[in-house]
């Protein structure tokens, strides 16, 4: 039910601040694993929901933070628009509509294909089709990703290097700061340079600077045509090619290498996609699927976005995300890698902290832990929300226990989560500035304390 809980939430923050009680902000609970454990009383934002305004010709949508991401995406899809940064959901529902399950994804239908566009119905032409980001249940399931959580975590999907990141699409926010004050920054217009840009600052701050109440996002028309091409390339060669292609006027919208092959997605108008295909060659992914049921390319990229690709589910070692300059040489010491973002995002499994390695390569690392580790049964909810390996396994493997999250246990005890570090440590001077900034917005440190770093 759409409702405005601003006053209730603000009052709770104000009283928590008065008493110095920490709060653990809760959205859909789909990304609790992305961060350190927070000890605090839960502040649920999910019931503060509803789309407040959406004017397609203005390219802006504004919604309350608890609005399910699927609801936003459904509203946009009705008008041929989307969130161009392709936010991952990590929701159970993300795979429920797919005819393949994660871990069983097959995308072997490779052949030279023809181009079709969604408005030509695909007919006999096959291959190109827009990824329909609309999952089956726009009402949003329990455990469904929310708009607030999406922006607070600041995650972006495969399109990120070409379309921009979550923060690039933030136009304005309404927040509750750590004093319980309701504040609005930015706005609902594309250009706005009045005041400090506190709205984009909220993206990725994981609620530690304010409780998101409303977010205004820039939205874009969905590309009229899409085509995924695959290439037999080594990972090192793929990195070189991805960068080379990105320097040419090509309608790239994703580029990854799954350890075996390279995949690139072209998106734009039909003429642009055709021209690029003619120039690049490669094989078309999913060309042999029956007309109108061509979900292979869409499934493939959704699996990349949701970390549902089989790569992410191999091995019991924690999954690490390395964010590197896109041209950083392949570090073979790290073993098998999934390269995304045209080379700028690399996923590896590793027993040991990879922060020093990432820093030496000019980037940073994030530990995604064991959530995406080995999967017992791909159709089970456990595959998505459940602990991937037992605590005993992890301990035996010489690692911290996993951040266990089981369905229906969103109110789980904080004590069940170890205080493992997740994010790249900051240089001291920068950390000191982070602390001062945190204090400026949340003087008593009650909003998601310790979620990113112990000091914040």
């Amino acid at each position: 039910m759409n409702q405005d809980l601003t006053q209730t939430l603000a009052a709770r923050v104000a009283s928590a601040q008065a008493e110095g009680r920490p709060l653990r902000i809760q959205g859909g609970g789909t990304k609790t694993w992305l961060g350190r454990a927070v000890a605090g009383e839960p502040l649920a934002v999910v019931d503060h929901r509803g789309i407040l305004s959406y004017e397609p010709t203005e390219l802006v949508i504004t919604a309350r933070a608890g609005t399910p991401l699927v609801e936003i995406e459904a509203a946009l899809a009705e008008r041929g628009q989307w969130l161009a940064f392709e936010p991952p959901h990590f929701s159970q529902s993300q795979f429920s509509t797919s005819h393949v399950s994660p871990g069983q994804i097959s995308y072997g239908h490779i052949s030279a294909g023809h181009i079709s566009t969604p408005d030509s119905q695909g007919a006999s032409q096959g291959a190109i089709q827009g990824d329909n980001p609309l999952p089956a249940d726009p009402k949003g399931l329990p455990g469904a990703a929310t708009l607030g959580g999406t922006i607070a975590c600041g995650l972006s999907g495969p399109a990120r290097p070409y379309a921009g990141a979550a923060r690039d699409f933030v136009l304005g926010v309404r927040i509750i700061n750590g004093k319980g004050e309701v504040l609005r920054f930015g706005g609902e217009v594309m250009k706005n340079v009045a005041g400090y840009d506190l709205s984009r600052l909220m993206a990725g701050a994981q609620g530690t600077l304010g409780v998101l109440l409303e977010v205004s996002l820039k939205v874009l028309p969905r590309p009229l045509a899409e085509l995924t091409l695959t290439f037999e390339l080594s990972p090192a060669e793929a990195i070189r090619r991805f960068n080379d292609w990105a320097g040419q006027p090509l309608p790239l919208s994703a580029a990854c290498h799954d350890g075996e092959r390279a995949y690139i997605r072209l998106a734009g108008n039909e003429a642009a996609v055709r021209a690029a295909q003619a120039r690049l060659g490669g094989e078309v992914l999913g060309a042999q699927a029956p007309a109108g049921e061509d979900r292979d390319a869409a499934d493939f990229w959704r699996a990349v976005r949701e970390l549902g690709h089989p790569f992410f589910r191999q091995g019991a070692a924690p999954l690490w995300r390395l964010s590197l300059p896109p041209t950083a040489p392949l570090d073979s010491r790290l073993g098998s890698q999934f390269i995304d973002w045209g080379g700028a995002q690399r996923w590896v499994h590793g027993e040991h902290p990879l922060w020093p390695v990432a820093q030496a390569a000019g980037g940073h690392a994030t530990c995604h832990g064991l959530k995406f580790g080995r999967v017992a049964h791909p159709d089970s909810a456990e595959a998505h929300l459940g602990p991937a390996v037992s605590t005993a396994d992890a301990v035996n493997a010489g690692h911290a226990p996993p951040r266990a999250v089981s369905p229906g246990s969103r109110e789980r005890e904080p004590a069940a989560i170890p205080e493992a570090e997740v994010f790249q440590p900051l240089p001291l001077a920068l950390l000191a500035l982070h602390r001062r900034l945190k204090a400026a917005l949340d003087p008593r440190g009650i909003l998601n304390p310790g979620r990113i770093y112990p000091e914040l």
Partner: protein
Amino acid sequence: MTIEPRGGHQGGGHDHPDPGHRPEGNRSLDQGHPHAGGHPSGHPHPQSALTPQARAARQAELVSGLLGILPTAQVLHETEDLHPYECDGLSAYRQLPLAVALPDTADQVQAILRLCHRLQIPVVARGAGTGLSAGALPHPEGLLLSLARLKAILHIDPLARTARVQPGVRNLAISEAARPHGLYYAPDPSSQIACTIGGNVAENSGGVHCLKYGLTVHNLLRLEVITMDGERLTLGAEALDAPGYDLMALMTGSEGLLGVVVEITVRLLPLPERAQVLLAAYDDIGQAGAAVGAIIAAGIIPAGLEMMDNPAIRAAEAFVHAGYPTQAAAILLCELDGANEEVSQEILRVRQILLDSGATEVRTARDEAERLLFWKGRKAAFPAVGRLSPDYYCMDGTIPRRRLPEVLARIAAMSTDYGLPVANVFHAGDGNLHPLILYDANRPGELERTEELGGKILELCVEVGGTITGEHGVGTEKIDQMCVQFHPLELTQFHAVKAAFDPAGLLNPAKAVPTLHRCAEFGAMHVHANQLKFPELPRF
């Protein structure tokens, strides 16, 4: 009419996007500075709170410290040497600083900031001085820190598509250096031939292509920043993100209040294969606005989408003879770029949309020369309007585009009330409206009435859900209207953020964010979308 000093100095660079200055296009100079009309010096110099003796002692102390860091020629303190720095592109506001420092290394900048921090002397950073909001106005008891000499392009990495540059590098110089690699830097404020990238970061500059390619903040990867206490920080990374808070986004557009940027890594884009422009004429400005919505609803994001109203059309046509239809109530210029085949396809679609939306005439530029001619009129709109009147004053509000007809009608009504003509040019794609108020500063009281009208126009923008500044920044000029756009609690939050970076408030004081005291004096009350927030709270 006052023309601001330009030669060799520098500045903020957030000003008018200029479609002609595409990296692959015309690189000729502006025909006039967008604010060339400017204000005459209608504002008294803010007076130093110090006695002349105390000010002289302060100046001596500062200069002596600076001479320990910089060669003599790079420290200016004689009054005649200070004059070129007394204002930026908004010349209505003028002030002499205690001294001007012209460092040429980041280490010198760091030493200067440490010195000023120790002496508790305010510091105003300046790029090319092209900003239009008096954001680089000197402080009477402060140092003017020019970054113009830090103008090295340090590294261009064609494969990674990045350029690492110093803050004094001109915006256009980056694209020129990248061009041999088939790359360019996308944000293109109209002052791009002169404005510096450091100023662009400070103002979060836009450009005519920002609907499609984003603002400065969307095209940055990494900043090297020195805080007021001399701490050097790296924000962002050559990777696509960085751990911790997005301080790079916060720093961008902070108008020199949070830190001094000494190195910038920008992202470069491949040059589009082709650009093509259409011109459509309308009898009714509402139809022109609806056409913009129809183009976007059709899933097309043009590279540039500009609108001019009849007074602006007539002024431009009389000036540059671009062939504009002078009877039209409004014209739209729509530029499409991309792959050759893509542009051919889109041009046909857009042409049909424009005709369907009631255009009385649609022309497609036949060649590059005509494309540049179409843009030339738009580019010359400001100086063209300047020919009609001794002075003009350029506003910079942003509004939800669907409110355009209503906003223009109300501006026209206010224009009549004040007896001051207004011409409008509009970045239609992103809702950024530039009303140009024509006036004569030599008529007693007219400047004051112009500013009052300007203030009311900005308040109207806020009322309809927009903002007081889309791209020129708040600076000194729009500081009172900040009281209208933001609630006192929000302003207080801004001050707290500022204090996290600069507790003593030494960086660019009295700009961008008003004190609550100032808002109380101004007497304005925050209104958002016609609704008072917290009606129960007492008002300042």
